Each structure stands twice: as C-alpha cells, then as structure tokens.
C-alpha cells in the first residue's frame, strides 16, 4: 500500500509487494479462459476441469485443518458425502431445492464436525485423525445400512443443479465455489483466528501458555472445514446426479490429502493451484489406462509418499524457498531475514 502512495514507487515495487495476489489473480484468469483453450473446448475435457476445480476446492478446505492446526481429517470424504447425501435426500424425498439443500448439507456436516471435534480435539492429534476416520467409516456404514432412504450401493438418483446438460455452467459454478472457499478460509487465516491456529499447530504447549484456549480454536477450525466439505459435497451430488456410498471411501480422502500435501501444507493456494495439473493429469491417466482401475490411486499414493519424504513443504514450500533465494540475489548487500538467521 505504501509503495503505491509514495511518489518514488515504481511498477516493479508494486508488483513485488503484491506479487502473491497478482499471481493468484493471474492463475484465476487462466482458469476462467481455460475452457476455451483446446483441448478443453470439448465437453469431455471440460468435465476434467470440473473435477479439477472440485478437487482444488476440497483440497483447500482440507489444508485449512491439516496445514494450520496440524490435524488430519481422515474422514474428510465422508463429510463431503454427508453433505451430498443430505442435499440429495432433501431434494428427492422432500422436493427441496438443491441450492437450499447444499446449505443444509453444509450445516449438517459442520454439526457432525462439531460433535467429532468437541469430543476428540482435546486429545492428541493422532486420536483426532483416527476418530475422524472412524466417524467417516460410520457415516459410510450408515448410508450402506439404511437402503430404504439412501438406496445403498444401488445409487440414489438426484436432480441436477442446473437445467442444462452442458458442462460449462457447472465449471463456472464450481470455480466460483472454489473462489468462495479460498477467499473465506484465507480471510479467516488472516484474522486473529489464523494466528491462533498457527500458534496451536506449531506448538500446543506455548500456545496454551500464552493464554489461548486451544480446543475452542481447534473446534472452530474443524467445523469450518467440515462445513465447506459438506457444501462441496452438495455440488458433487447435483452435478453427477447419482450418489453411492463409495463417495465416502477413505481413498477419496487420500486423493484430497495427496493434493493438499503436494500443493504444500499451510498455504491454501498451493493446494488450489496444484489440483488443476494434478487432477487433469490423473484424469488423463484414467482414460489412457481405463482397463486398469485404480492406477490413478497408485499414482496419488506414490506422489504422496515422495512428497512426504523429500519435499515436505510441497510446491508452496518450493515456491517459498525460490522466493527467498530470489530476494537474496536481488538484495546482496541488504541482510535478508534468511541470511540474518543463519549468520547468528
């Protein structure tokens, strides 16, 4: 801001101070025009874009918990599924508009998140992760075991969200949902809550010592993430038009968490950006090897393993260190933060 108002500010300065925001807007611009660039002009490829944006939005919501409070919501897919089924059943059995159903689904997912979080987030992180997984299994079991309502593995047919069979409107819708997810969660991260999240995620003991009630913040974070998962699930339901319990499989959670961690934990943007090339690549693999079901999951698994061992910061971490290196190169005589650290 000060760079703009001061007379001596050059364009380069403006770009430097706002490079993050400019970069993200540029990427959003690319995402907006992408469906008009071949091969994405074809309906099948536009469908890939929808999947990519859907994965991106999920990964952002996932990273909000995993990257900031360091809790892995291992039942994430089940919360997505809960939102999907809520909205779907409301539409099928009660004729409620999917737009309202999606909000109800989000609320219900948030509520289940609240119960899960309130019970387990006081305990060590690994318990919360395993309990979230159990809750996810239970939700899936529930859906399977009440076929009277959910039609079980036969699949529940759900009305579509838009009155069209074209993919383009759905793409812009999910892109908008991605932007909303990102902006809201990034805004929370920038608020005083975000500071508390980070403090807790990095060091619970010292966060407690500085007077933060960790459980409250952990629960708030967890509920928000679950609610967004449910909301996105609503999109899934009314885009595909058919729901099976498989949407809640742990392997879907692993897909989302793989994207989130490859993108870089604790960055939000890394997950959003990486999701596009990654899930488009994966869709391509799925098509190329359609006789080999699950090959894309092997890919996700291997990538996740490699990232966990060799690049725990993911793409965002890579970008951060590139940025630091660049800064140091640009300002050789001014001591940057990084050199000051190592020099002491």
């Amino acid at each position, binding site marked *: 801001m000060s760079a703009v108002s001061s007379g001596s500010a050059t364009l380069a300065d403006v770009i430097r101070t706002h490079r993050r925001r400019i970069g993200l807007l540029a990427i959003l611009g690319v995402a907006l025009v992408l469906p008009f660039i071949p091969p994405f002009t074809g309906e099948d490829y536009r469908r890939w874009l929808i999947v990519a944006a859907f994965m991106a939005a999920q990964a952002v919501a996932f990273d909000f918990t995993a990257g900031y409070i*360091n809790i*892995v919501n*291992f039942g994430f897919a089940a919360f997505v599924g809960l939102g999907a089924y809520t909205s779907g059943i409301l539409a099928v059995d009660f004729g409620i508009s999917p737009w309202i159903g999606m909000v109800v689904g989000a609320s219900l997912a948030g509520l289940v998140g609240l*119960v899960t979080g309130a*019970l*387990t987030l*006081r*305990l*060590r*992180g*690994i*318990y919360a*992760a*395993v*309990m979230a*997984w*159990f*809750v996810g*299994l*239970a939700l*899936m*079991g*529930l859906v*399977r*075991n009440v076929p009277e309502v959910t039609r079980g593995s036969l699949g529940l047919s759900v009305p579509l969200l838009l009155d069209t069979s074209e993919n383009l409107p759905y793409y812009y819708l999910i892109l908008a949902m991605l932007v909303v997810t990102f902006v809201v969660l990034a805004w929370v991260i920038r608020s005083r809550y975000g500071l508390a999240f980070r403090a807790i995620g990095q*060091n*619970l*003991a010292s966060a*407690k010592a500085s007077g933060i009630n960790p459980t409250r913040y952990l629960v708030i974070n967890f509920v928000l993430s679950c609610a967004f998962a449910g909301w996105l699930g609503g999109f899934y339901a009314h885009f595909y038009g058919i729901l099976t319990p498989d949407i809640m499989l*742990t*392997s879907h959670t*692993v897909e989302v*968490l*793989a994207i989130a*961690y490859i993108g870089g934990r604790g960055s939000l943007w890394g997950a959003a950006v990486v999701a596009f090339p990654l899930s488009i690549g994966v869709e391509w693999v799925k098509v190329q090897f359609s006789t*080999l*079901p*699950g*090959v894309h*999951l*092997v890919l*996700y*698994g*291997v990538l*996740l*393993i490699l990232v*966990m*061992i*060799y690049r*725990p910061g993911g793409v965002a971490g890579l970008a951060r260190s590139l940025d630091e290196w660049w800064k140091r190169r640009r300002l050789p005589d001014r001591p940057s933060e990084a050199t000051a650290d190592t020099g002491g």
Partner: protein
Amino acid sequence: MTTAATNLRSVPLARRFLSFTWLTLGAALLVMAWAAVAQPSILIDTLVTGGMWALMAAGLAMVFGVMNIPNFAHGELFLLGSFTAFTVYSPIRDAMFNDPSLTVLKIFGPFPGMVAALLVGAVVGVLLEVVLFRPLRRRSREQWVMNTFLLTAGVSVVIVNGYRLAFGNNYHGVTRYWDVPPLEILGVPISVDRAMVLVIALVTIGLFAVFLQRTSLGRAIRAVSQDETGAQMAGIDLNRIFVLTMGLSCALAALAGAALLFLFPAYPDVGLQPLYLAWFVVILAGLGNIPGAIVGAFIVSLLQTLTAFYLRVGWVDVMPTVFIILILLFKPSGLFGSAVKGVWEQ
C-alpha cells in the same frame, strides 16, 4: 515426538491398562459366559477372530510404541498375508484332491502358506522401514507422528490398488483348510479350522510374549520404546531394532491374514476391517500398550461378533465410532488414560 513417547512410558503398563479396561473386560467376560451357554457360536467366533485381531493389534501397538509410527498400512499386510497363503496353499490343495492318500498334506498342508505369509510380511515390513521410514527419519523428525501416518496412508493406497491392478477384484479364498469333521468340545461342534486358528493365535502370542520378556533382543525392543537415548547408550543400534520391529509387526499381521483365509478371502479391500478393528483395539488399550492390545482384541472381537449376530454385518463399521463416542460422552477425559490428556506430538 519425545513428549508423546515419554508420556506413554511414564505410566506403568499395568496401571494404564487397569483403569478403564478391567471394567470392560469384566463385562466382556460376563457376556462371554452368557454367550457360551446361550449361543456357543458367539463365543467361538469371538475367540477365533479375537486371537487374530490380537496379532494385528499387538503389532500395531508395538510399532507405535517403539517407532512412534501410527501404521495405517497395517491392514494391507493382512491382505498380502492372505494372498500369499492362498497362492501357496492352492497347489497343495490340488495335490491332495488328486491324490487323497496324501495324509501328510491333509494335516500339515496349510502350514507352508502360513509360514510363507510370515516371511512375506517380514520382508515387506523391513522394506517399509529401510525404503521409507529411514530416509524420512534422516531428513526430519519434525511432526513425525502425523507425517508417518500420512506416509503409511500413501503406502496403503499403493498396496491396495497395486494389488487390484495385479490380481483384480476377485475373491481368492478357500472354504476350509482342514477337510475333517468338526470337533466336539463340551457338546458344541467346532470346525477344526477355527480350533486351529485359536491354537495358532495362542501359540504365537505366547512366543511373542516370551520373546519380548525373556530374550535380549526383546528387551532391547522394549528399551528403545522407553528411552531411545538410553538404548543407544547401552549399545543398541536403533536402526536394527526398527527393522526388527517393523518386520515382526508386519509378519504378525500377515500371519493373521493367512490363518483367517477361510473366513476372509483375499481381495483388495480385505485389510480394511482388520485395520480399523486393530486401531479400535489400540485406541481402547492405549497406543503402544502391547498386553492391553492383546486383551482388548478379544473385547473388540466380542463386540464385533455380537453386532454382526444381532444387527447386520454392515453395522460392524459403525460400532467402533458409537462405542468410543459413548465412552467419551460419559468420561470426557477419555478411555485413553490420563497420560494422554493435552499431549501433542511435536
């Protein structure tokens, strides 16, 4: 991560295990006594699967206690074990079918498959430690517990889907290992397979306990779980212990898969239920508590059997969640003992 570890250690095993579990154990024994009279099959199923969940849970608890790794790929060892046993046993079964006079095979035929499963499990476990955990350990031990959890989640997905790619979605199983009429114990018929599974479980658990309690290597494993630095001061090579622990834990899980082949045929997702039941056990007993895991396994097996018997098999997935939520509602400090409250891994 040291905080996590020390907190497990600061409370003697026995006491940690006493607080909550004895009550449940008493209740479980009462139910079992009743079941033995009313529905003998419940008792038998509980003991049979319980023995194998004990092998699974003991390995899971040991790996957490010694290496601080919450192994999410533990169920996949069950899968690999069951498929190995199937592969080795099939030709033996065919040989018996072609020549019924081979009485030796009739008695000892199933064992080569189980031994092979043990070996495969051990090899995979060693590979996991050497190829994945060791490089990660060398690079960083920050947020170790969560990172290894994710790492093993990746491993699980790779093994399940790799298996699916290689062997497809079909069931590979056997109807029975020992083709002989059921035994009758106290007027209750028990198939020889079930009886043998129980015997195998008890023998393995016994050997495992003796190994940990009485041998120098077993003591070294326990020493590492209690104080890594102290163990190194005593000349114990941590890398060696980690390899051994991982190999042993995975071998036990694979053996469980092999022994239960007649109940759980090999297919890509077969490891899921053993995995979450083993996790359920370990959470009830306390992470890293091996004796607790063994006893807890029978309690969980009883719950599972009752659920499947009186409700529907599908509700077994829901049972752990309901059970844990109930406990947390009535005892908010948790079933995990006071040692865990407010602790975090670094």
